[in-house]
């Protein structure tokens, strides 16, 4: 009888021990298969890129014809990052501390991506450092040498932009009595006329602008 109870106790002990081993093994398997915090960081970087593009795409000026992406497209095609100054300054305020960013422009004419601006490189360019009186892109030194650490995410947007805005024609009639006319700058008074009225068929100088379709891509890393 005593031996039987002892056997029961030993069986129970072995069962408990076996359960503990199973739980430990299962825990190891479950924990190891669980995703790491990488996905959270990746999602955050993706949201950051997406939201930044979305917000900046809504910035319009020049009666709706001008936008931050119009200048950026021209900057990318001409390899002149400083032409995208407004976009860069706005983006510097939106991208938080641990991250850096770069813009690219996809042209459907040559079907290539063109680099617009890389904050980690441009903001640290010694040439800009030496010439601080030049156009200030922002001197956001916090982007200097921020290289890929954990994540990089990108978001792109299809855009139609005016690289050159519509230019309303100048009136050929330079009569000061017409409340004053300043060629190319509006209608203020007391300015010299540069055009002769009643010219033979004064042609319109209306310029329909330069509208392009392309894609803007914002890459964020940190």
């Amino acid at each position, binding site marked *: 009888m005593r031996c039987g109870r002892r056997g029961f106790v030993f069986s129970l002990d072995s069962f408990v021990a076996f359960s503990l081993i199973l739980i430990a093994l299962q825990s190891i398997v*479950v924990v190891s298969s669980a995703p790491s915090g990488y996905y959270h960081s990746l999602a955050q970087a993706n949201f950051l890129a997406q939201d930044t593009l979305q917000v900046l795409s809504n910035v319009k000026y020049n009666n709706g014809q001008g936008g931050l992406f119009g200048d950026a497209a021209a900057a990318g095609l001409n390899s002149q990052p400083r032409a995208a100054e407004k976009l860069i300054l706005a983006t510097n305020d939106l991208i938080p501390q641990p991250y850096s960013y770069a813009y690219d422009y996809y042209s*459907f004419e040559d079907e290539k991506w063109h680099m617009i601006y890389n904050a980690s490189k441009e903001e640290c360019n010694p040439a800009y450092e030496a010439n601080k009186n030049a156009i200030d892109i922002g001197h956001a030194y916090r982007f200097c040498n921020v290289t890929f650490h954990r994540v990089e995410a990108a*978001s792109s947007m299809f855009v139609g932009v005016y690289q050159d805005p519509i230019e309303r024609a100048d009136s050929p009639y330079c009569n000061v009595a017409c409340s004053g006319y300043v060629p190319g700058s509006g209608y203020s008074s007391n300015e010299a006329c540069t055009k002769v009225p009643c010219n033979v068929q004064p042609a319109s100088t209306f310029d329909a602008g330069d*509208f392009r379709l392309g894609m803007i891509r914002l890459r964020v890393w940190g």
Partner: protein
Amino acid sequence: MNRRGFFFTVMALILLSFIFISVQLWAQTTQAQEQRYAQRFGTYAMQDAISMASEQSLADFVNASMVHAVDKFATSLENNPTIYLHAVYDTRDKASNDPNSYPNDPEGIYYLNKSIYELMVYGNTSGYLTNAQNSWPPSKYFYDYTTAPAVGGSSMSVRKNLTYEQDEMRYTLGYYFSTTGKAAQIIGYNISWGKPKNFTLNQTDAWTMHVHLEVPVNFSDSQGRLQTSKNVSVDASFDIDGLSDPYLARANLEYNREIGVPLSDIFDPYTLPHRNIYHIPEYEERADAQAQALKDGSEGLGWFFGPAVQASQLPLFSKDNYRFNSSKISSYILVTSSAALAKEWSGSFGAIMLVRPATEWETVRTINVYQNGP
């Protein structure tokens, strides 16, 4: 003692089970989140693709396309004044004054709407006159181009449609459709556009043109599992400030034909009237444009400079008195509201300012909806 050991063992098992279940729940939650991230990224890509076929995206492009088409049209009319310019002038006899007898001009605005439609969609105007090939003069062209290089010593008349240059084709809707298709394919989706329909073009007020069109679009993913279609309806407006105005040339053409001026004189580019449209805020009201003497001076300004003379001062002037010889009077400006006085003294004064209330002129024109394109 043994019972206490048993109790502790059971409690330990319960505690371990609770920890194990918690860990498993956490792991399952994070796994589900991981799957959701992947789905989210896919959804964002789909949103980007759908936005390419959105009303806003198409409206922005239609606006740019319309501005370019109208400017191209107006400039081409301006630079190629000819009687055969069908977009300006219908060569059919209008003596009967019956609109039904003008099948080539159903809108009463000389193919303007069709021309703009075809420029926006195809980049040329080759389609709209195809039914009038048997008329004389031959109608399937936009304008005569008579300054082509001479062949064999004689000038050559080349009839042409109004056609975009290669670089201008990016303003056509066809280019927009193909480009959005390429962009969608980059992120794994397909967009296919149908033919624009219900196209209308109207001038809604003195400064604004408005266009409306609808385009069917199909959207699908690369596997063909997701398919949707809709009609994208677009309205866009733009300010015509600064554009060349073809109306003046057209009205001048009709007027000169009525009074029998030879065609060669009508289309002389050095005498053809020209007008651009300018919206000057200072002249917002018609009274603002009314002729008037300057309030803060006695002299005129601008093209005609000289002392301003009111009609009441006319007795001081004489066309016969040597003290007021014609050269001297011509340095003055006569300000009067009398047309008779203005006519009488028009040969003596340097300028006449005929002061009278400005009048407003308005034309109401009804434009039919243009269904389903040409």
